[in-house]
């Protein structure tokens, strides 16, 4: 019986392993290996240059450090402020005020439609000529505050940040689900002991959902580390590189036919991801078994 199963087990694992090899394992090896090469097509170049790509990234490339900084700042904003926004809403909704279900579903909508659609919507909202934001400023007599939001160096970074920062429906849904699954008798007991609603939130509920908040922080970090489409569609990383992040810079480097250099950026993305995840795990004690 055991003997015969081995074949079946191999057969059941094969498709997953093949796709894993093709899309994750081989590319992962290629990213690390070719980051040490001057690797281009047209004219075909494949020359070992050691860590030169990395040296160039950190010491000569005027674009790279600002791009790295943008990426890190965005990850931090998303992990802290975005998650806080979603969590505050979840803490309001778990007490089931009037209309809580409506708010939960509505706030989730921007997270369900595609990023590219959201980006297109904001491209128009921010439009200097007919956008809703400038129209609103005009209507309330604040014309002097009008900007070409996405294309003005002073406003581009915060304007792009807003396109994802305010949509924390995912976080709300997850934290809320965790809040609602806690035993109500714990809350009741705290109430009988005379705890105020704020004390219950802070001292009872928060510790119970802390790990879930940790999970949403990890998701937020991953989301920002992979962010590409919304920047690509709205500003394309400009003006200059003021709204570019690592994936966008990697993409433009690939398009510039500089594969080895692009893959050294890929290595940096993987390392930034690894450091971020380790930090978050430490902070939220995610590795501990309960």
């Amino acid at each position, binding site marked *: 019986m055991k003997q015969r*199963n*081995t074949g079946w*087990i191999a057969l*059941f*694992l094969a498709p*997953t392993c093949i796709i*894993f090899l*093709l*899309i*994750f*394992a081989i*590319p992962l090896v*290629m*990213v690390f290996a070719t980051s040490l090469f001057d690797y281009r097509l047209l004219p075909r170049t494949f020359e070992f240059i050691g860590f030169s790509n990395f040296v160039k990234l950190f010491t000569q490339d005027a674009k790279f450090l600002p791009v790295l900084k943008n990426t890190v700042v965005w990850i931090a904003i998303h992990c802290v402020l975005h998650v806080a926004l979603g969590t505050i*809403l979840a803490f*309001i*909704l778990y007490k089931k005020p009037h209309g*809580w279900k*409506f*708010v*939960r579903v*509505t*706030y*989730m*909508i921007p997270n*369900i439609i*595609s*990023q*590219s*659609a959201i980006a*297109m919507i904001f491209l*128009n909202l921010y439009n200097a000529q*007919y956008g*809703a934001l400038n*129209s609103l400023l005009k*209507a309330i007599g604040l014309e002097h505050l009008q900007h070409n939001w996405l294309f003005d160096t002073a406003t581009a970074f915060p304007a792009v940040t807003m396109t994802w920062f305010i949509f924390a*429906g*995912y976080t709300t*849904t*997850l934290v809320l*689900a965790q809040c609602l699954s806690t035993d109500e008798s714990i809350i009741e007991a705290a109430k009988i002991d005379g705890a105020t*609603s*704020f004390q219950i939130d802070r001292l009872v509920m928060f510790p119970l959902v802390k790990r879930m908040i940790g*999970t*949403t922080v990890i998701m937020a970090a991953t989301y920002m*580390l*992979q962010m590409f*489409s919304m920047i*690509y569609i709205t500003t394309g990383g400009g003006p200059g590189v003021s709204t570019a992040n*690592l994936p966008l810079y*990697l*993409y433009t480097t*690939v398009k510039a036919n500089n*594969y080895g250099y*692009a893959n050294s950026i*890929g290595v940096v*993305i993987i390392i930034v*991801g*690894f450091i971020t*995840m380790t930090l978050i795990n430490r902070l939220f004690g995610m590795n501990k078994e309960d």
Partner: protein
Amino acid sequence: MTHFKLSPKQKAARVFSYLFMALCVLVALFPIVWVVLSSFKTNREILSNGLQLPSTFSFSGYKQALEMAPILKFFVNSLIVSFASTALNVLILAMAGYVFAKKKFRFKNLIFGILSLSMVIPSTALMSPVYTVITKLHLYDTKMALILVYTALSMPISLMILRSAFAAIPTELEEAAYIDGAGFFRTFWQVMMPCAKGGLASAAVLAFLESWNEFTFALLLTSSTSTRTLPLSLSYFTSQFSFNYTAMFAAITIAVLPSIIVFSIFQEQVCSSLTAGSVKG
């Protein structure tokens, strides 16, 4: 609601709660409502005042959008790619998840550990080599390329959801099927799969959302209208519709409305899938 008198502090908290909720609803709905309303305005109305309501409800923008760009073609491409990759993803990861949950074999933990790596690698870092692999397989600019990549992108989350779905099924059930003479495959397909329905649904919902909305790899791996998907078609509108704002707003509406409708119908399922994905992931 309550029989007690509220202290001023509690009243303030309540006012804050409702204000905060109202603000969140406004933030979520205003951009979409603005786009939908603008799609009914004429070009002149859009340019003269961005906040004015449309004077008449004309669908001419929609007609123009459908004539100017192959939106329906993109839509069908998205449907094919999303359904195919979701089906493939759920099927092969159910097989793998079942084996990891219920079978003992050599190198099990090692193989699982390696597969779990896919969870911690940011996929954007792999853009360039994935492009190379797809080109080498002669799949560049084909739907198959996207189906393959999307199956992989949803792999980590599906593996976690499905492994725990199968682990939760009592082993006695499996043994009973064996004793009744069912083979390996029949036990999996006719006994275990129906029991894992909840997990399968969760994994499918997440995989479908991922494929339906994915942009980066679609941009990287396709170039022609016969393969491009709906999220890409939108960025293409910026140049196509440079001077026809009505049609552009109509196009955005066409792109977002199906997702919103489907979500409104299945929101309970979607939300519980998201929760399942996060707990297991």
